């Protein structure tokens, strides 16, 4: 992994009304790095990741993508966003467009590719997420997991330098989660730079080079996956990790009892 910073965030602060939802958040993402963000709900994870591609305005602090400052007054946010892929918790596929047209829209209207080149990429990206046969379908005809994989293909088609994931599996049936995680694993293997907000702790632990634990709008602890999951330094982090482990054990014993 190179040490070149692809994204840099410094002293980010954001309020909703009088409530601070992000409080002095700083982070750096090296090219090729996979960064996991975990934390209780309401911690500000979604807000943070949405700030990173300018979907959410910030109150203070600065964000850079390579040498371009996103938070500069004259930043061309449209151009910057086309360099950053974003995967939403609830997919947000364009409901009026077929799978192929969902992917084609950005290729034609943002990257301004010709029809043939766009079609080529549509099929390449659909193959990459294992849904080549679904190109004519409409989002409503697909399962949640398939929709999420299409939304990943839509983001990848823009050939982004960085992919942001906001709880990509939280809205899915348990049986659909695996397919989405498999696609994300293949991206990790290809060396894609990724920031992943997720409650899939085992997945984060397996793929992330670096993990941020957030609570109440702050980064409580940052470290290697090993440190955060096995040897958390902060009491707050420990509580969270232990809580999740306990919940998992509870679930497992419930299932065991039912069988």
């Amino acid at each position, binding site marked *: 992994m190179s040490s070149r910073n692809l994204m840099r965030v410094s002293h980010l602060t954001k309020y909703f009304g009088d409530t601070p939802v992000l409080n002095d958040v700083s982070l750096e993402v090296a090219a090729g790095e996979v960064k996991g963000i975990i934390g209780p709900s309401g911690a500000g994870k979604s807000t943070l990741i949405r700030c990173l591609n300018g*979907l959410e305005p910030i109150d203070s602090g600065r964000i850079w993508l390579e040498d371009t400052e996103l938070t500069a007054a004259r930043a061309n946010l449209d151009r910057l*966003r086309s360099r950053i892929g974003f995967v939403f918790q609830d997919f947000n596929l364009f*409901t009026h467009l077929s799978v192929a047209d969902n992917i084609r*829209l*950005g290729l034609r*209207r*943002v990257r301004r590719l010709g029809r043939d080149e766009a079609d080529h990429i549509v099929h390449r990206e659909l193959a990459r997420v294992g849904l080549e046969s679904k190109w004519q379908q409409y989002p409503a005809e697909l399962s949640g997991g398939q929709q999420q994989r299409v939304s990943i293909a839509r983001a990848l088609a*823009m050939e982004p330098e960085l992919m942001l994931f906001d709880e990509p599996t939280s809205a899915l049936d348990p049986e659909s989660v695996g397919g989405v995680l498999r696609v994300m694993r293949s991206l990790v293997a290809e060396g894609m730079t990724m920031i992943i907000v997720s409650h899939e702790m085992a997945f984060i632990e397996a793929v992330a080079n670096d993990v941020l634990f957030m609570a109440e709008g702050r980064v409580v602890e940052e470290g290697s996956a090993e440190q955060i999951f096995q040897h958390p330094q902060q009491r707050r982090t420990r509580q969270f990790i232990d809580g999740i482990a306990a919940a998992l054990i509870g679930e497992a014993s419930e299932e065991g009892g039912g069988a």
Partner: protein
Amino acid sequence: MNDWLAFAWPHLPALLKGTGYTLIIWVVAMLFGSLAGTGLAVTRVYGATPWRRLATGYIELIRGTPLLVQMFIVYQGLPQVGIVLSPLTAAITAIGLNTAAYQAEYFRAGIRAVRPGQMQAARAIGLSRRRAIRHVVLPQAWRIALPQWANEVVIELKYTSVAFAISVPELMGQAQMIGADTFRYFEIFLVAAVIYVVLVGLVTLLLDVVERRYALRH
């Protein structure tokens, strides 16, 4: 009945010519109304405050006054400021301006009903706001508004008859003239009514097909 048919038959060409005018007024005014209505709706939802107020003011003004008054203002009022329109053009203008306001409200409700995540996803792939509205929000808003829109354009098909008041020889105008010549108002208006029913029926069928074709799948 035979007598009735025998009376109506020779007048059919005139009535059909009138029907042609009715359809011209309707089609052109609806096209204009859909474009202008979309513009007004987008302005009301996304526009800067002064533009938004202007659009709202226009819509309220139109919806608060009778079509007949609007038509007379266009036909007889505008010449005072140097704008002279033929009866046909005046009728199309008045009905177009009128339906634009109603269509704007349906499209606006449609825009509001598009889920916010759609706009966010559009922006996330790098589409500008303008393009996101054009390629993602509006196509969905139109589909959501389609039933109300269809209802509105059918109502306007019947309202084209108001154009007879500024002497456009559309269907109602023709019937009126024939009635005045023959004093058989009852029969001739009945024939006109039948033609309106057939038109409305055909248009409704057509719109049903369109609605089914473009229904949003959820």
